[in-house]
């Protein structure tokens, strides 16, 4: 028994149409005789009998579409009987692959087109990575990366959409431009609401932890600070959309991975040049204004807080600051800081943005008279020209020593800082 199957006539062909049958079930057919005509999207052609026999089942009527490899008819040899369709379908395992059988005939159009079909099948990567996978496939690769088109990522950045929340509609769940355009946040919940992962559970026990020299110093100096220093706090919210975009460009062009904080260090230092009375220390007899601007940066280490110093930060580029801060932070984490690295600051910045803290107040690091507490930047709806637009906003709280810095001076300083942060081109002029 032999089967006549729908041949694959081209790369794009997935099915073909039965145009007409030259023979009907029960007719005697000779090897090489045309049995039926099929139509593909490119050509019409006759399919011929592979062997002498009787036409058995005609599986598809004229006008029907049959997928490539689908059985069109069987040809029964002498003495063979038509078998129920189920068995026909189950049979091929023991035999030659059906796709080959339809072309197993020399000097016929079936042969040449069949080989041609094989040639097409062989081209290109064996794994068709361009094939449209079902969109039910999770839109992540092996490493959890979301599949997305470059344009979709660009639009997500510009619109402040978190790509993690978008359902992709492209092949393999790829997130495409339309998905970003049509994306609506699920609820009023903030967009970056990733499911918070809890820190690991700790063993509960009663124990005494001896004070390290570092912990003693932190305690003494900060107690000194809140004790004798009359603190007050000023909070401002800055638009950092342009600063974030500048940072991306700086990173791209310089190849140096700068952080938002590196820009703030420079901005704070430049703003101090406008308000030297903030760059000062309290003394019992006099207030000292410092001739140089050294910015202390609060760095958390396993042992506790330390504030390494970027010296003359107002004279350094953002990329220089980035390199220096990274090296200081590494040293701090490895306890390699020398006193020269952490003494002599004239102003301090503490940034808890990386922890998702929106706003906090920091305690002044004496003998400084002010410290900036930087919160996380986040995309927020803002009204500009009576239109609601999404902008990145960041809250900054300045703690001031009222003995030296009065409210108006602190406010002036924050206003100057706003100019640097909201028009960040000033940072690179």
């Amino acid at each position, binding site marked *: 028994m032999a089967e006549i199957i729908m041949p694959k*006539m*081209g*790369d*794009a062909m997935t099915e073909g149409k039965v145009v007409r049958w030259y023979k009907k079930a029960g007719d005697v057919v000779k090897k090489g005789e045309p049995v039926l005509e099929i139509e593909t*999207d*490119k*050509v019409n*052609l006759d399919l011929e009998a592979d062997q002498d026999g009787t036409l058995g089942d005609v599986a598809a009527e004229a006008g029907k579409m049959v997928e490539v490899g689908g059985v069109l008819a069987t040809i029964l040899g002498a003495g063979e009987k038509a078998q129920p369709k189920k068995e026909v379908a189950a049979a091929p395992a023991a035999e030659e692959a059906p796709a080959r059988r339809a072309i197993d005939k020399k000097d016929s159009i079936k042969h*040449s*087109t069949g080989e*041609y079909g094989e*040639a*097409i099948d062989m*081209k*290109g990567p064996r794994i068709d990575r*361009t094939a*449209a996978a079902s969109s039910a496939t999770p839109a992540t690769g092996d490493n959890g990366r979301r599949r997305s*088109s*470059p*344009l*979709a*990522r*660009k639009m997500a950045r510009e619109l402040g959409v978190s790509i993690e929340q978008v359902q992709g*509609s*492209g*092949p393999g769940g790829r997130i*495409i*431009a*339309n998905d970003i355009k049509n994306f609506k946040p699920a609820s009023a919940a903030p967009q970056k609401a990733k499911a918070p992962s809890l820190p690991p559970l700790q063993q509960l026990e009663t124990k005494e932890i001896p004070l390290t020299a570092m912990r003693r110093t932190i305690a003494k100096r900060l107690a000194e600070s809140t004790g004798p220093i009359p603190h007050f706090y000023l909070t401002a919210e800055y638009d950092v959309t342009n600063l974030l975009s500048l940072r991306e460009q700086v990173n791209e062009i310089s190849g140096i991975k700068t952080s938002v904080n590196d820009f703030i260090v420079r901005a704070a230092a430049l703003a101090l040049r406008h308000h030297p009375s903030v760059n000062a220390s309290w003394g019992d007899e006099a207030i000292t204004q410092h001739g140089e601007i050294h910015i202390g940066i609060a760095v958390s280490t396993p042992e506790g807080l330390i504030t390494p110093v970027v010296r003359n930060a107002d004279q350094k580029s953002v990329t220089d600051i980035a390199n220096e801060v990274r090296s200081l932070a590494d040293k701090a984490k490895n306890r390699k800081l020398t006193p020269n690295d952490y003494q002599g600051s004239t102003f301090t910045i503490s940034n808890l943005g990386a922890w998702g803290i929106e706003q906090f107040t920091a305690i002044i690091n004496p003998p400084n008279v002010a410290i900036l507490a930087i919160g996380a930047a986040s995309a927020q709806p803002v009204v500009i020209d009576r239109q609601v637009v999404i902008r990145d906003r960041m809250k900054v709280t300045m703690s001031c020593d009222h003995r030296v810095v009065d409210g108006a001076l602190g406010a002036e300083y924050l206003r100057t800082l706003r100019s640097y942060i909201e028009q960040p081109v000033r940072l690179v002029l």
Partner: protein
Amino acid sequence: MAEKSYRDAIRDAMMEEMDRDANVLIMGEDIGVYEGTFRITAGMLKKYGPKRVIDTPIAEAGMVGTAVGMAMLGLRPIVEMMTMNFAIVAADQILNHAAKVRYFSGGQVDVPMVIRGPQGAGVQLSAQHSQTFESFYAHFPGLKVVAPATPADAKGLLKSSIRGRDPVIFLESAALYGMKGEVPDDADFTVPFGVSRIAREGSDVTIVSYSRMLQMSLIAAEKLAEEGIECEVIDLRTLRPLDLDPACDSVAKTHRCVVVQEQWKPFGAAAEIAASITENVFDELDAPVARVTGEDVPMPYARNLELLATPHEQHVIAAVKKVMYANG
């Protein structure tokens, strides 16, 4: 303006340049007495005589070598290949001599010559005579590679080729010889190299092509327009120099790109074009750049198989829908 065929536009370009400059001459197989296998050179022997319209033996390496020498000494030879497939015989003369002389002479000697002839499938000339060569020649610095899609461009680009300082590979599409179009009459009408044009404006998908495939892409674009998909079609005109600025600008607008070429897919012109577009406007792409190419087989003689092996507008339509994620 007058309506002319692609074939007549090529002949007009050569005759106008031969009238303009006595140093221009043409040589090739059966171009004189027989007036050309594709009748490109009809009437030229009669007008210019055997010193400027030279019937050669069947010796392509000799023809090109002779032309390189002529060009080095100040003539402006045009070599007609009966088909560009025969120029393979002269590959050493073209790639290692014509393309290298200026470099080797420290810029002292130019080789102003044109090697022109038909290429491509569609006229049942089988595996050896249906090939396309743009990626082959465009790989080599020192050559210019031209592939016009319209009669006007055929004329304007050929005149630029003849007047220039460089060896030019001028690839005509055998299947376009009979195509008609408006061609400027001005004897000084030329089309510069390295300036792509927008052949059709659209906003949804950018199709980049050249030569015969450009015409096919325009047909596909019209059919797609009936379904509400507007394609912008870019005609590259020259493969070396290659001007991808209009294509990149267009992709920045449409965010989707299909490149169409007749030749085989591996290492073809479409690979270079797609890679360059990806390098230049990566962030604008909403789908991978798709390629429509010929099938990866020697060209069959049989008409039905030749049709199966060459790109068809249906392939362009399918590729456009794929990059639009419109295939359901």
